């Protein structure tokens, strides 16, 4: 497949290298992506001639069931190119090609250079928390501008209420969480009725944000969609970031991280406040919506991760996660990554009056 893709690229250098001439030769680094819900995809980083950095990222579905991911990625990048100002949109790679290579679909986009924010956050040696935090706030500011430019009125659908219903049916909640969720009812209806919708990345983790000479860049748009709830990406970034610990996959650290960022006495509250303030500088939003939006985000992620787990279960292989993997059952799946968000929801319910912003 790699050879076929290289042939497609060499046959049309103007499409793939619009500002440079035809390459003499190409070489490829294969990068395995995560399994996701439907087998996921694989990325080929393609280097031209003697370049030390890749020029292109070509993506292919692991098997035909994953080709919808490529469509979503291409649609997201097109939206950014067509509907968002170049100042904001340039953080995303340019989509160069969407088509077929033999029997397989593939998309090609400009490769992104730089160092992932995650690497800066999780280095234990010479860890520079101030710099990592500044970059996280910069990413928040960019998210706010993206949200402001893609803002559109609420559609009146019952998405938030429905999300809560699904969440409640799937997860056994303790009394405090149950009461908190019941109390959110009117707020969620309010979000459905009044909260503006924005374009979201959908997987805005610190591993998908790069900083390099060209400034901030964001990769992997396969989960992006128009019409998402504001702050989804920012809350995703804050809940998935772990500082200076070096074990991003360890869920207990994410629990501690959540408390340190989101609660008044948490230790990193200033950082979360700055990030939210930067976001809201661009997207003017009633601050009263923050708490229900955070609760909605946690429920939505729990539901999404549950569906990922279901998809993996249907395929016959569940990626182990620590520590939520212990004791997970084929039919339940409440303890893996989706369990993380359900637990975070429980923490929010227990400390709902101590929220940081």
């Amino acid at each position: 497949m790699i050879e076929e893709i290289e042939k497609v690229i060499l046959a049309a250098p103007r499409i793939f290298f619009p500002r440079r001439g035809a390459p003499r030769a190409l070489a490829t680094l294969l990068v395995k992506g995560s399994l996701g819900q439907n087998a996921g995809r694989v990325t080929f980083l393609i280097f031209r001639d003697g370049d030390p950095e890749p020029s292109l990222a070509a993506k292919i579905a692991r098997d035909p069931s994953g080709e919808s991911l490529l469509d979503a990625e291409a649609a997201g990048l097109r939206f950014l190119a067509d509907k968002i100002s170049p100042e904001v949109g340039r953080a995303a790679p340019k989509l160069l090609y969407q088509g077929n290579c033999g029997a397989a679909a593939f998309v090609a986009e400009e490769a992104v250079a730089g160092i992932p924010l995650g690497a800066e956050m999780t280095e234990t040696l010479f860890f520079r928390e101030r710099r990592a935090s500044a970059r996280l706030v910069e990413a928040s500011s960019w998210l706010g501008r993206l949200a402001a430019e893609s803002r559109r009125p609420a559609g009146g659908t019952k998405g938030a209420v429905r999300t809560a219903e699904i969440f409640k049916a799937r997860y056994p909640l303790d009394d405090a969480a149950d009461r908190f969720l019941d109390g959110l009812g009117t707020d969620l209806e309010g979000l459905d009725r009044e909260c503006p919708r924005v374009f979201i990345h959908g997987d805005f983790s610190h591993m998908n944000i790069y900083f390099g000479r060209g400034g901030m860049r964001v990769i992997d748009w396969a989960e992006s969609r128009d019409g998402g709830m504001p702050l989804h990406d920012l809350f995703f970034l804050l809940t998935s970031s772990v500082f200076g610990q070096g074990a991003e996959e360890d869920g207990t650290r994410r629990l501690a991280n959540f408390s340190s960022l989101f609660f008044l006495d948490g230790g990193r509250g200033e950082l979360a406040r700055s990030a939210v303030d930067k976001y809201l500088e661009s997207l003017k939003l009633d601050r009263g919506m923050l708490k229900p939006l955070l609760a909605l985000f946690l429920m939505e992620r729990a539901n999404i991760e549950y569906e990922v787990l279901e998809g993996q279960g249907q395929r016959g292989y569940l990626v182990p996660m620590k520590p939520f993997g212990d004791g997970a059952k084929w039919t339940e799946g409440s303890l893996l990554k989706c369990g993380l968000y359900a637990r975070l929801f429980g923490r929010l319910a227990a400390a709902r009056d101590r929220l940081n912003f």
Partner: protein
Amino acid sequence: MNDSMRYACASCGGPLDTEAGGWKCRACATSWPVRDGIPFFSARDYYFADVTEPEMDKLLAETAARGWKPAAHDFLRGTNPGSYKLAGDESRSDWKFLFPLTPETSVLDLGSGLGSIAFSLSRRCGKVVAMDISAKRLKYLSLRAAQEGTSNIFPVFGGDAPRLPFPDGSFDLVVLNGVLEWLGLFGGEKDPREVQLEKLREIHRVLRPGGSVYVGIENRTGYVYFFGGMDHGGTRFTTLMPRFMADLACRLTGRGSYRTYTYTEAGYRKLFSEAGFSSAEFYATIPSYRDVYFLAPLRDARILDHFFARLFQAPSLRRRVLRFGARLLLKLRIFRHFVPEMGIVVRK
């Protein structure tokens, strides 16, 4: 018995005719039985695997009773998480994208184990023959295929005899993932390298013109062996010794003779060339050929340097030292000699 597959006699290579309960060679009259839909081209049933035999029996019973997914998850995941991954994680074989796979592609997966590679390939290829020398593993694979409704995987028992039971030019791709190094165990007292060479010549024969072999294997001088990394026979430092010395070390420690040969890049090139192949391209399989997360051509130091500089996560001091060492070896242009494991694309 599946008639859409073409077999040949594993003794003499002659054509096979159907007979009651199996196949019979038209030339030498050897009979090859078919049991539970699986053709048997060997009389010996071996069992060695990461899953112990009692675990395998339980897994088979659970798979038949409850289906392969609940059995793998509720039983195998708990008792043997490594094998659960080997059995179920199809992304382990992302190296498949090195090859032009189409619905017409015909593949032989030699040493197919629990079948995750065969199933992964079956989603993009026309036909996958899964060959193994353990009847229980093939039974598992066969049950899974039936339960999934996968009709393009053909389990075949055998592979220990010098001759493969297929006519000339049957396959576009032959997969040897973690297999070549073990072949010496099936050669009796014969030199292990000769046994490997014999099998590679057979593979060359069953490949179509322009066909390829994918070999996932260790590098004899991988850096891990200098730090006491375990060789296949359960010994340390033996890969680094001359063969006679490794053999002596194995015998002295009660492990029998040393037969699990691996090679350096140059050694593999020589082996493939002697077997009749025209070229071999080497890739670093990171972290392992059993579970490839990154695959980079060994000839291209700048790609590997990009990997270590940008993509290799180094949150601990140990990994930082590893990254520094790897980049130093790349600068000195000797990294390829110390890479622990490799994926090799060999062309007919």
